[in-house]
Each structure stands twice: as structure tokens, then as C-alpha cells.
């Protein structure tokens, strides 16, 4: 039956705006984090970020070509608007990851780091052993560590115990746009995690992002699906809506799911035109 209770309506209205996410004391009203790779230009990137409503963006580090063109990504990123999350992409082991994080801290004046160690360029699978090792070291050195890992519940728990501020398990291989292929394991990670769970990699459509948030993921990180879309700006907006819908749905509580294929009527099944059906 429908409820007309004013308290209920008040509570429902408050859910129209999903709750904020807090990571290491920093509050985010947007649960959509964006990568900055693969955009055709800095201007398109800036407009896509704006349309997505994101408040946290990743950047990579690269060796400067001493005689080559300069990168001007920072010219397109308003640091009052976006928190930067430098990644350690390109490192092969824990030792290199620690140096990369320390370089990033000096380059960008942030102690936040997306720890990613994936030495194999074919599949870009994160190395769990080196990642855990580096995470322990970086936490000791005062970093806010967000590790990119396989959807491994045991590893995620160990990273949490090592002091990581969040965990970033993958949905599917980086850039694959295949969605939540690791769903069964993500569910376990979300169920037992005491730190925010950010689904990173493989999300190819706003529906994937919505599904991740419906599962209870605290945020998602998206790059290729937006940057490589024919219209990255509109796609940034579409992901914003998907993430919002997924989070509000999660906070509202999804209605129960039938365990068989029988229908459950939503309309009264009394005969409408005649009392007895022939």
C-alpha cells in the first residue's frame, strides 16, 4: 500500500541527493572518478570532466623528453575544482612504485597516490605481491594509498589492513569496456570492506557504472568509455547520471528479486469485466 506518511516522504526526498563519500577525510559529492587518458585534446577533456561532475581525476607520470614537446595537462585541470590522483602506471615493482609516488608527491603536491603495478603490457594485470609490498611501504611514508588490484577479496582485505584509504578492484581488463565481469568477487569485497571500494577498469557504459553502484560500490573510476566515445562530453554526462541512479537505487534498497521465472503481478488480478472467467 502507498504511504502518505510525511516522515517517509521527507526521508525519500533526502535520498534524491545521494550521500557524500569520504576518503581519508576528503568529502566527495560525486562518486564518479575520471581518468584523463586518451582524450583527443585538452579542451575536450576539460569539457568532459565538467559534464561528468567529477571531483577526482587521475594523472600519469612520464619521463620528460629533453628535446621534445612539453605536456600541458595541468593547464587544462582546475585544481580548485578537481583533486588530482597521480598513478604509478609504468612501474614494474614495489621499489619503482615508491619512487614514482614520491616523484608524484613533489610534482603535484599531493600525498594521494593510485598505486598500480602491472608489468605485463598485454593484459595489464596488477601484480598483487608487489602491490601489497608497495602499499605497506607507502602508508609508512605518509601516503594516502588507493591500490588498483584484481577483484581479489583476500588481497583487498590485506590492503585495508595495511592502511590503504580505499581499494580499487577491477571490473574487467583496463580499456576493455566489458563491464562487471568480476561481479561475484566484487560482491564479497564490498560486503567485507571497511574502506571505500572503487570499481576501476573495464566499465564501458553508464549501465555498468549504475550496476556497480547498485551493488554497493562506493565509487567508480572511468576513462576509456568516456574518452574514446564519439562524443566524450555527452558521455561524461551520461556516466554522471548512471552513477547517481545507481547510488540512489542502492540507498533506496532494491526490491526483492524472484528466484524463479514466474511473474509477480503488479496489477490486481480480479476479473475486470466479468466475475467469472470462461
Amino acid at each position, binding site marked *: 500500500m502507498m504511504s502518505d506518511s510525511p516522515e517517509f516522504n521527507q526521508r525519500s526526498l533526502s535520498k534524491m541527493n545521494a550521500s557524500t563519500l569520504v576518503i581519508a577525510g576528503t568529502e566527495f559529492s560525486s562518486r564518479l572518478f575520471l*581518468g*584523463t*587518458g*586518451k*582524450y583527443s585534446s585538452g579542451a575536450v*577533456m576539460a569539457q568532459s570532466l565538467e559534464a561528468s561532475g567529477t571531483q577526482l581525476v*587521475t*594523472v*600519469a*607520470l*612520464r*619521463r*620528460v*623528453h*629533453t*628535446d621534445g614537446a*612539453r*605536456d*600541458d*595537462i*595541468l593547464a587544462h585541470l582546475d585544481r580548485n575544482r578537481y583533486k*588530482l590522483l*597521480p*598513478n604509478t*602506471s609504468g612501474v614494474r615493482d614495489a621499489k619503482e612504485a615508491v*619512487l*614514482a609516488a*614520491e*616523484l*608524484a*608527491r*613533489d*610534482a*603535484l603536491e599531493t600525498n594521494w597516490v593510485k598505486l598500480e603495478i602491472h608489468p605485463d603490457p598485454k593484459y595489464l594485470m596488477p601484480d598483487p605481491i608487489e602491490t601489497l609490498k608497495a602499499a605497506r611501504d607507502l602508508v609508512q611514508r605518509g601516503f594516502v594509498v588507493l591500490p588498483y588490484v584484481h577483484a581479489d577479496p583476500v588481497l583487498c582485505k590485506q590492503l585495508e589492513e595495511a592502511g590503504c584509504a580505499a581499494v580499487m578492484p577491477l571490473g574487467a581488463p*583496463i580499456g576493455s569496456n566489458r563491464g562487471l565481469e568480476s561481479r561475484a568477487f566484487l560482491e564479497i569485497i564490498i560486503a567485507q570492506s571497511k574502506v571505500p571500494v572503487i570499481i576501476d577498469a573495464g566499465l564501458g557504459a553508464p549501465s555498468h557504472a549504475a550496476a556497480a553502484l547498485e551493488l554497493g560500490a562506493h565509487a567508480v*573510476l572511468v*576513462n*576509456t568509455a568516456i574518452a574514446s566515445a564519439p562524443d566524450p562530453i555527452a558521455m561524461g554526462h551520461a556516466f554522471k547520471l548512471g552513477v547517481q541512479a545507481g547510488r540512489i537505487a542502492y540507498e533506496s534498497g532494491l526490491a526483492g528479486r524472484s528466484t524463479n521465472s514466474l511473474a509477480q503481478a503488479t496489477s490486481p488480478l480480479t476479473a475486470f469485466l466479468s466475475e467469472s472467467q470462461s
Partner: protein
Amino acid sequence: MPAPQILSTGTPVTVTVNDKPHTLAEATTLAQLLASIGLSAGQGVAVAIDHAVVPRSAWSTHLLADGDQVLVIQATQGG
């Protein structure tokens, strides 16, 4: 016995910058080296020498030594 080396002012210093050799005047600071390749603070740049970060607050005083392996990185697009 080899003859003792006499250090004189103006002895050039050879370092590598991202694996490429660079010959510099004696007493070149890190800030001067970076300026010579078109870089300054505020461009998302960081430097390590022999795998240890030299914080940007020390760039203007840090003198380069012969054989230094200088790694210069910069923020770029990435996911």
C-alpha cells in the same frame, strides 16, 4: 703513481638526463639544468638523482655532480 689531479674552476660536469648525456659547466644547479631544457616548477615536474627525489625547494641550491643520473618526470594524461 698517477699524477695528482688538479681541480680547476671550469671543469665540465657530465650527467645523464633521462639516460641522455648532458655536459654542463661546473657548479650548475638543478634549477639551471631544468631551465636549459625548458622546465620550471609548477609544470607538474619532479626530479630524482640516483633514484632519490630532490624536492623542488632544493632545486636552486642543488649542484650537479659528475656522473649524476638525473630522472625528470612530468604529469601527463592517464587513467
